[in-house]
């Protein structure tokens, strides 16, 4: 069960912990040694981390372990020691050690105590990257996984240097309303958009602290916008205007199929509140979905699939990955649509294109079908070199469950994605590094103070994660007023 995100709780916790903090470190005099890696949760063995990341605390995977003792030694100097029920590193000492070993390795020596005896396991390494993570933290939506009711849904932000989580907007503040994800311009929270669905619905555009609620639905557009992407210059936002539905399987394997009855791409001019429509982006014979502007803003990537009779023809939904030129000076799209990856020809579906902000890479999802990969068990992440157009599956990060909803850090050397790898149901967030050559590191699970307890007790799934350069400033009290009683600015068609 997720705990409350109020300011009061940490204060109370601090008071209680102050009383409980009676350190009692046991000296290990005798131990067995085994030549195998320790069974720890999360599996942080061999991962690469950025300087500034919160301590990679971990637990013994087995419940029967009484105690864990961990010594971390930096290849460039410094060390850390912790002992207890789980490896719980001091935040300041951790940062000091990681900083000191930037570009180097951290060597972890783990001893586990079971039935009164200690066992020392094979040491493992964690690499400290040379690439800084230019982000204060990440934003994401927490939602109950599964079916038609979102439950206690909310958009949150997390400080990546520690374990603090802050709500941006939760369902508690706008009860009974489903909220779509927070999308910043690249990773800059000074500009972001989000949507509230259903009654009193609207699209939020916040620029430099000024929030506007817009109605993007018109006679010509069939639905309000979602799955947003900002043009890098910050004037335009592309949305997919669609109707999303779910159908549910009856058997033992899959739970549900998510599909769209229709989908068009619309472009909002946030200055004039006009919608820019283009016939190639709103065809009757196809669904255009998941728009994403390139780093230079001259290209809009998106996925397109033939209009199928869904849900009956759900197996036929195969998306191609295409692009269309965009001219920011005139706010117009070109006429030629280029196909980068042909879904029907490859009998695959290519979805959620995310070009890196340095213009080098295009990361996307590949699944056997569908235009909603998070519900597809076989969804994997792939990477395209935008210069050579070479593609490859990211075997370093993919799992046998859905891996999707990826986003880049501002320097494009890190990405965050969501994965159902642990239990096929509760999506969690992973971070990984990409170097200049497109080599990707083993991903690491978003650190938590006590990861095993935290994730086991969490009944929400993470989705649509994104990096944020600084903390998102948002007045949720005003949002309540705006959602329930505020005016909506009606867009017009350009």
């Amino acid at each position, binding site marked *: 069960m997720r705990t409350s995100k*109020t*300011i009061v709780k940490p204060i109370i916790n601090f008071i209680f912990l102050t009383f409980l903090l009676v350190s009692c470190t046991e000296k290990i005099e005798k131990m067995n040694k085994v030549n195998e890696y320790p069974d720890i949760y999360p599996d942080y063995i061999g991962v690469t981390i950025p300087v500034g990341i919160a301590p990679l605390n971990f637990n013994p995977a087995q419940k029967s372990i009484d105690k864990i003792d961990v010594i971390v030694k930096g290849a460039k100097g410094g060390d850390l020691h912790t002992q207890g029920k789980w490896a719980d590193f001091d935040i300041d000492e951790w940062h000091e050690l990681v900083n000191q070993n930037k570009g180097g390795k951290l060597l972890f020596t783990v001893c586990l105590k079971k039935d009164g005896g200690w066992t020392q396991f094979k040491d493992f390494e964690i690499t400290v990257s040379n690439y800084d993570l230019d982000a204060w933290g990440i934003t994401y939506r927490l939602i109950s996984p599964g079916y038609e009711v979102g439950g206690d849904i909310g958009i949150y932000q997390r400080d990546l240097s520690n374990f603090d989580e802050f709500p941006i907007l939760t369902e508690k503040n706008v009860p*009974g309303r489903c909220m779509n994800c927070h999308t910043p311009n690249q990773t800059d929270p000074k500009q972001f958009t989000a949507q509230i669905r259903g009654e009193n619905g609207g699209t939020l555009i916040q620029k430099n602290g000024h929030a506007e609620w817009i109605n993007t639905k018109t006679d010509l557009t069939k639905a309000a916008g979602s799955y947003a992407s900002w043009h890098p210059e910050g004037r335009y936002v592309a949305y997919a205007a669609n109707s999303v539905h779910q159908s549910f399987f*009856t058997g033992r394997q899959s*739970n549900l199929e998510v599909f769209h009855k229709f989908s068009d791409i619309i472009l909002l001019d946030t200055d004039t509140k006009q919608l820019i429509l283009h016939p190639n982006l709103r065809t009757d014979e196809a669904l255009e979905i998941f728009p994403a502007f390139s780093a230079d803003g001259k290209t809009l990537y998106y996925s397109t699939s033939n209009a199928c009779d869904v849900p009956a023809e759900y197996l036929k939904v195969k998306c191609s990955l295409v692009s269309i030129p965009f001219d920011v000076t005139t706010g117009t799209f070109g006429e030629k649509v280029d196909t980068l990856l042909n879904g029907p020809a490859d009998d695959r579906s290519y979805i959620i294109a995310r070009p890196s902000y340095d213009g080098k890479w295009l990361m996307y999802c590949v699944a056997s079908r569908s235009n909603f990969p998070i519900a597809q068990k076989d969804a994997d992440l792939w990477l395209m070199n935008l210069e050579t157009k070479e593609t490859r599956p990211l075997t370093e990060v993919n799992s046998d469950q859905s891996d999707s909803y990826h986003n880049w850090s501002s320097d494009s050397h890190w990405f965050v994605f969501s994965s159902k790898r642990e239990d096929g149901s509760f999506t969690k967030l992973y971070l990984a590094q990409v170097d200049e050559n497109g080599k990707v590191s083993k991903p690491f699970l978003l650190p938590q103070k006590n990861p095993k307890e935290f994730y086991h007790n969490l009944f929400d799934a993470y989705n649509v994660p994104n990096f944020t350069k600084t903390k998102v400033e948002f007045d949720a009290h005003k949002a309540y007023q705006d959602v329930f009683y505020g005016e909506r600015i009606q867009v017009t068609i350009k």
Partner: protein
Amino acid sequence: MTGKIQKYTLGIGFLLVFAAIFLFWAVGFPHALSYQEQYQLFLFTGDYFMERLSMPGGVAAFIGEFLTQFYYIEYLGAFFLSLIAISSQFFLFLLIKDYGKTDSLSAFFLSLVFPIIMIGLMGDENLLLSYFVSLLAILKSSYFFRNLIVFADILIIPILYWCFGPMVWLYIILKMGNYGWKYASMAIYTIILQWLVYMVLLPQTPWIEAALGIYYYRIPLPLLLPVFPYVAPFIIALTVYVSKGIALFQSSIVKGCISFLIALSVGFLVYNSNPYDKEKYELIRQDYLVRFEKWDEIIQRAEKFQVQSPFFSNCINLALSQTGQLAEKQFSFYQSGEDALLMPSVQELFSNIPTSEAFYRLGMINSALRYTFDLQESILNGQKSGRFCKRLAECYLIKGNHKVAKKYIDLLKKSLFYKKWANTADKYIGKDNMVMVNPSWNTARKFQFKEDFLYHYPEIDKMLGQLFVNNTDNKMALEYFLGELLLKGNVNEFVHYLSWAQQYGGYKEMPAGYQDAMRAIQSKGQDLTSAYAKYINAKLRQNENE
């Protein structure tokens, strides 16, 4: 001597009130207690405590939820409720005596206003026990701190507000009775206090909840603002104030009569507001009976009173099915239409319960999982449900997803009344073969669809047919299939598939319900003795009207 008699009389009076309230809940409305219990899951964890403590009104919520878990055993729940009611009445009695300087008997009669109001208010199934815990705490504080200097309230009011929420206003109102307008400064102080808490400590709370309480009502106040719970504290305060007026009368008999009449009038008003709507509470009772598998009682009650709703039809049909009477008697009871056996998905916390129970027993585990999951997520105050968590854990075990099942089992282990079940279920984790040893889980697993296809409610009859074909031991699926064909009026298909009933149903003779349906079909609905003919004719009329 008179004092002693008075004391004993009062004691007996309070005892009688206690007994009446206890019987009201334990005998009259145990299902209302079950309803409350099933929409929360009290956990014995530090996090749970901290979470409550971190919001204004959280102490009351914590105590309220702690006590509500005992509703699982109805007599225990009724006992605690009666205790709260009688304690609150007692402090109201003391306040009346102290403020009005009136005699004990009239104070007792006046204090009856509290249990009357409490019973009336509790007819609203969304009002939470934390509301009454707060009322009790505030009445008690008002009595104990009645003579404290005003200055002390600078400290007391914030503490009371944080622990019990905006009910602190009752404390202020009652104090104003003693101190008059001099005390208005404390009201201004409280407004500022609440405003500051809202601005600084409650960034994700709408102002209306910060002002009127976060934990008193299950439905968020921006969606539904109930009137009576916010009027009731004023009535209670008025009861205290009015005692001063009553004390002006010389005769004890007159004072007693007036007090009794006031209590009676409040009772009349409460009764007139019909807090226990018969149909609503009959559905809650049916749900309670389904929960504890009291199938015969469902049928017995339905023979006397039927609510014309799909929920009711789902309950009675499930009860008939579980007692082997569905084929015989389905149309002897009210059938709401095509949704009488299984309802389509409705996004709220109650309507789909009997359907999810039926899906589970049919072996449509994915559908049971979906309906149960959505029922739990529809609890708008974000609570989990012990009942639903248990069912989710079972569904995941049957599906073979032990990791997710373990999450729910471990959650239930932290509760009081689900712990034992969770500890037993935990033994199955990671041992999939053992799941097959459990008779009900093994049956559900055997009955599951072998092939995956998309659920489509308009074709529920076909799905039920497919489910039966999947495993011809699934007699419930057979009866639901044939029953659904009849509900839809697919008479040709019913006639066609009736041979399945003969072949697989294990009936000694064709069930009376099917014979009745055949008579109706053969007479083209003209056989007026046929229960099915009545149903189908009504359905045809309804279709024509639409």
